């Protein structure tokens, strides 16, 4: 894929008219107030217009549950009965260095059970989600690079631990554009404020700023999109203003017929006018029937997941749902209570989403991704005096991520960690591999979705990445 056009747009108006076989008249603005069309001058000049990927995609959109802080894999999707054998004792073999010191083996306090036809093993923490076991493919052999949140968040979100690189959502939006011009194409929600690393997690990096994720805090009901509500003019006044604007711009354009940028800007006002209504509507879960709202639950995670579904339904390309400000899944101590609390908040909404997408026929075209920035140690974290903190330290050597929906072969397990869950050992999957797989589901060859920057073609997967084919249908 080539870069989007730089300051001069790809099609001159003339060229555009030739392509579309349209005369001047049909570019009139009134026509635009109908359904969103793709083939008009504004879209030709619009870097967000919907585009086709490299090959027929399985998924059209993505929802990513980001359990920030590093969810423990050995307590959720990667059962390790061997830990019980060594409970309270040192694990045999070499200890891997993590951020803090850890001690004895720490068996999971949670029960695992087999679910579905596939018999996928999931812990009681995600019992509701596990009802969809046969839709889920767990990658148990993920690994990252360092045991620190910041670089690992960057790696998971942007494919590079340190340098400013575009996020997965930004790449997807760049590649596919959006199907609904009235809403941002990449929306990220996090209750209560920013996660660690702030907006870097959804940055556009060297891609144009329009591909940056739009942040919404679902706890601040009403805080939607900047400037979406006019504090100084009602709808009727704005309509009259836009009528006059149209007339003045038409006069200005009379002698400047060859500049598609003028058209694009004229039309952006019409789009904005519609956006004021559509965006408000998309975020209004009051429009959902009671049973649906109950299915998702009344917690803020229920609300944000339900909002996410409304967004996906309206053509938003990429939605990322964070668990909360800071790093709520960072269970250094008292992990049992912490995990129960955190998982208790999202198990039901995730299960509801999968049910809901399925009943709407949307699951086949929606890629659902679940995971954090790394996993946690199978050994117990030690405090200053070497005392157990009943928690787990960060573990980049092995962890789990699961996917479901468009393009994914449900009921599968890919790879494995060692006997204790410390290190990925079988069919190891890097974060680049995960990214390559996500792009593949969306119809992209990850080696070809590139952007020219600083003298070379950059891609999300840098110089690595292999599609993890065993999780694909």
């Amino acid at each position: 894929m080539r870069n989007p056009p730089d300051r001069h747009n790809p099609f001159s108006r003339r060229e555009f008219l030739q392509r579309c076989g349209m005369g001047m008249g049909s570019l009139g603005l009134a026509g635009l107030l109908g359904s969103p069309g793709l083939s008009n001058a504004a879209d030709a000049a619009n870097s967000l217009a919907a585009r086709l990927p490299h090959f027929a995609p399985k998924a059209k959109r993505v929802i990513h549950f980001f359990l920030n802080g590093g969810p423990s894999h050995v307590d959720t999707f990667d059962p390790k009965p061997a830990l019980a054998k060594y409970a309270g004792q040192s694990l045999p073999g070499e200890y891997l260095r993590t951020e803090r010191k850890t001690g004895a083996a720490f068996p999971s306090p949670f029960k695992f059970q087999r679910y579905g036809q596939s018999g996928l093993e999931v812990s009681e923490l995600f019992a509701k989600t596990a009802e969809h076991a046969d839709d889920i493919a767990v990658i148990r052999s993920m690994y990252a690079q360092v045991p620190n949140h910041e670089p690992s968040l960057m790696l998971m979100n942007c494919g590079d631990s340190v340098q400013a690189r575009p996020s997965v959502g930004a790449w997807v939006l760049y590649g596919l554009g959006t199907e609904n011009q009235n809403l941002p194409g990449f929306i990220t929600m996090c209750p209560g404020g920013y996660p660690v690393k702030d907006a870097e997690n959804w940055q556009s990096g060297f891609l144009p700023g329009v591909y940056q994720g739009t942040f919404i805090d679902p706890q601040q009901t009403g805080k939607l999109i900047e400037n979406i509500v006019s504090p100084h003019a009602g709808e009727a006044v704005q309509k009259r203003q836009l009528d006059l604007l149209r007339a003045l711009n038409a006069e200005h354009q009379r002698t400047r017929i060859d500049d598609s940028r003028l058209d694009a800007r004229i039309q952006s006002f019409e789009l904005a006018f519609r956006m004021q209504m559509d965006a408000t509507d998309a975020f209004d879960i009051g429009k959902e029937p009671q049973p649906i709202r109950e299915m998702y639950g009344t917690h803020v995670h229920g609300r944000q997941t339900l909002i996410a579904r409304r967004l996906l339904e309206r053509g938003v390309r990429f939605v990322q749902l964070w668990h909360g400000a800071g790093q709520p899944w960072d269970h250094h101590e008292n992990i049992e209570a912490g995990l129960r609390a955190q998982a208790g908040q999202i198990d039901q909404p995730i299960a509801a989403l999968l049910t809901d997408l399925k009943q709407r026929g949307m699951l086949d075209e929606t890629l659902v991704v679940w995971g954090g920035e790394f996993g946690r140690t199978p050994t117990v974290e030690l405090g200053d005096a070497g005392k157990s903190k009943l928690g787990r330290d960060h573990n980049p050597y092995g962890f789990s991520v699961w996917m479901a929906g468009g393009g994914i072969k449900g009921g599968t397990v890919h790879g494995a960690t060692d006997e204790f869950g410390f290190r990925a050992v079988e069919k190891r999957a890097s974060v680049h591999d995960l990214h390559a797989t996500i792009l593949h589901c969306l119809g992209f060859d990850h080696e070809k979705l590139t952007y020219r920057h600083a003298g070379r073609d950059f891609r999300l997967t840098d110089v690595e990445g292999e599609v993890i084919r065993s999780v694909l249908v």
Partner: protein
Amino acid sequence: MTSPASLFSITGIVLLLTANARADEFFEKRIRPVLADRCYECHSATAKKIKGSLRVDTREGLLKGGETGPAIVPGNPEESLLITAIRYHDKELRMPPPKEELPQQLPEAEINDLVAWIKAGAMMPADSSPAAGSLRRPDAKLHWAFQPLTHPTIPATPNPDWPGNALDSFILEKLIAAGLKPSAAADKRTLIRRATFDLIGLPPAPEEVRAFIEDQSPGAFAKVVDRLLASPQYGERWARHWLDLARYSDTKGYVYGREERFFVHASSYRDWVIRAFNSDLPYDQFLLLQIAADQLAPMGSPDLAAMGFLTGGRRFLGVTHDIIDDRIDVVTRGTMALTVTCARCHDHKFDPISTRDYYSLYGVFHNAAQQLVPIGAARDAAYEKEYEVRAKKLAASMKSRREESGERLRKRLGEYLAAQFELEKYPEEGFDQLLGAADLIPASVRRWRDFLRRSDTHPIFGVWNALKKIPAADFESQAGSVLQTLSLNPLVAAAFSTPPKSMAEVAERYAGLFAGIEQQAAQADKPADPAAEALRQFLYDPLSPATVPDTEIVDNELFFPTSVCTELWALQGELDRWIIQSPAAQPHALILADREPEPNPRVFRRGSPSKPGEEVPRRFLEIAAGPNRQPFTHGSGRLEMARAIVDPANPLTARVMANRVWLYHFGTGLVRTPSDFGVRAESPSHPELLDWLAGYLIEHGWSIKSLHRLIMASAVYQQSSLEPSELSAASATADPENRLLSHFPRHRLEFEQMRDAFLAVTDELDRTVGGKPGDILSPANKRRSIYGLVDRQFLPGTFRVFDFANPDLHVAQRSETTVPQQALFFLNSGFIADRARAIAKLPGTDLERISHLYSALLQRAPTEHETAAALSFIATAEDATVPKPPESAWSYGWGEYDTIQKRIKAFSPLPYFTSDAWQGGPAWPDTQLGWAQLTAEGGHAGNDLQHAVIRRWTAPGDMTIAITGKALHEFEPGDGIRVMIVSSRQGELKSAVLHHSSAEMSVPAFEVKKGETIDFVTDYLANLNTDMFTWRPVIVASAPSISWDAKKQFTGPAMLQPLTVWEQYAQVLFLSNEFLFVD
């Protein structure tokens, strides 16, 4: 392989191969990258071990083949083993080989390319064989940008009327060759508007336009240009271009909580750049100071601020290699348009830049440390005194912590040596572990590692490497003889007089040797033993790994246990914050200053610091300095590097800057990739003109202003952007992108120009120069946008939406996107509405007012059409005006509910509106009003019973109303809330207590009197915990039939003062394309 699509593409390729040049291009673009990426690792001169004896990096290698025979048969892909291998048809011969069971097969398109290439004869460019370890692309040296500047003669052109100056001859020559013509000269109003936005980033004042139109003298435009160049606003516009390149930000990006995230020095750098442009500082000096002011300007000089160019990047969580990479990038792309950082992990794939080049520069930057220094004289004695106290406190803590850590390093010397046997336990920078005082410090382990690696002849540590080279099995038998070859410090020689049995024992002996050395050297009654003194001095040598480097915390943070690091950062942060916040503070510069000279850098193989390769001297890039370049000799070599950059013989620097200046005037560079002049960059549209301009820049003392004068005096700059229709048909075919400049390219205002223009035309712009940054989106801030706070971590959405340069990256040219969010800003932001309010306050008749608005905003008179449209807008708006908008019936406040009297005790308005909610202030909870908040559909009760939140409806007349709506308290924690509906005349109408429950809050039809208030009250019941609620009352009046919906009519304060019709009209003019685009 035989699908119609692939046949088609092969045909296409064959056609592509007709000419030799094309063949070369095809090879370079489509074949070599594939071979390099997928084969060279095992089959080239650069391979560690050539597998199967096959080399694919030369044609000879391919023809000769490897163990299985020739790899290619030119003209016959089906007979070529290479093709068999990449097709994966033969299970035994699959290339690239599968990895972890997964095929690594080339994509079909690449296979097709290789097939086509062999079919066409497998041609490679003649001089393309890469020598081992050197550049892959010697032929790349022939690339135009690497050739010395030429001195082109000005073409003779047949049109005596058109050329305004020499530039035009170059332009006209190409236009004529393409069968095109330039456009007519722009009218004077257009020209002055263009020039003014261009040079100072602001629109011309109406008087300036009038004066220029009236000035009939031949030098009228030159006078305008001179006036603009002399204006202090010129620097404010042109500095911003440079700040884009310098990835300017007032903050460091993400830092750990211990560190102050604001830079102390950023605005000093910004102001220095502004002054440099205003004073027309020669461009060579401009660069020298930005790269090496520490060696050119005395301490305290304001010019030290220039080094913010290097030190203004992200902190990258303190990872040295990434910080240096960022600095190399900003210097090499910024000044020479070379993408040197591509060579961090491997030789540049296309340009003649090797990893050796990269690490030569890496060494230059590694050999320097940051220093925060005050510049200019202190203006305030009290400040100065306090500054010294604080700086001393920091320095004293640093000193004692360094000594304490040094003490531990010395005591545990043996352990640090032993750690060298298990280096894998001490990861590289970026892998952060929490370290206690008892832990070995990984940074020191690595410093020992690096020290030992280059200690072959060290009189104390020479033993280490000499013995380490002996294979373990032969250790005991060979150690003795090896030791005899060394020349050693006598004490060391004595310690190793008997050969040790293993390396572990070597470490132990060193530990023993150093254990008593300090006492031994310090025995007062004896003259110091020189051998013991040498050992003692080693322990305290600043270059010794047994010390903590003597730098600011930013450069030695990794050498301390975590708690000490946090403590020192906290102290540094206190000082930084105090400087930032002191009104009397001196400006500061953050400079790089050379350290004690370090040994030469080593190439990191594949960019990994744990895999050091060959040593390289610190020296300049071969492509710019020639094959005979010499190592730098002075300190780090940074100043020498800077001088090499601005050397007039450097083919790149002047070309790159001439191209940038051209780009900022015309919107497109002569080279369209202004920060990449490498092999893959497009050729210049006018190569001779580029060289001529570069030469002009150098000959005119590197004066940027002289370049402006030259360019703006040309006819090509002064021509119209409106191409006559009889010409546009021809240029559309011959030059659709207007590279040849048959007309002037129209510009859209950049974000800063746009905001500044809004403030300028309403005469509100604050023209104060320089100083600390502020939030330019706040209504009170009317300064120029360049003084806006740039927080790279929390860049406001509005900046992004308007394509502001990403402050993390060197940005050579901004993107220009058009999205509805921009239109939302124009329509709905308070900023635009305030400008409309400011300018619409006009006296006079309707016609006078319209004319004034056109003059101020667009610097022209309205046409008849436009006047008519304006009059009609104003007339019909007045017709449509409703006496009082129904939404003003709502107000939002707080107060206490008197449960006895069933009345509100006092109603106070909530003072702050966030655009979504009414609350106590910008922060929520507010220090005064706590959590009290009302949103469109609910809110949050206040912190106590005195702070119930009250949504008030005031009856606009006597009428009958009914109330509906459900109140909901959603959450389980806490004890819930109380909700009441209270009339000012009739008392409580309804109430409920809610906890994790809801209630219908409906009141059937009842009468209200004009002015009567109905209050929807929520308070916190008994404790403050999770007291948010949802409640959206709807009031329906039966006669007249109107309804008020709390959500639909929820608005901020401005709605209480909606725009007047003239303000609405002025806003439309602000929104117009004519305002935003410059012809």
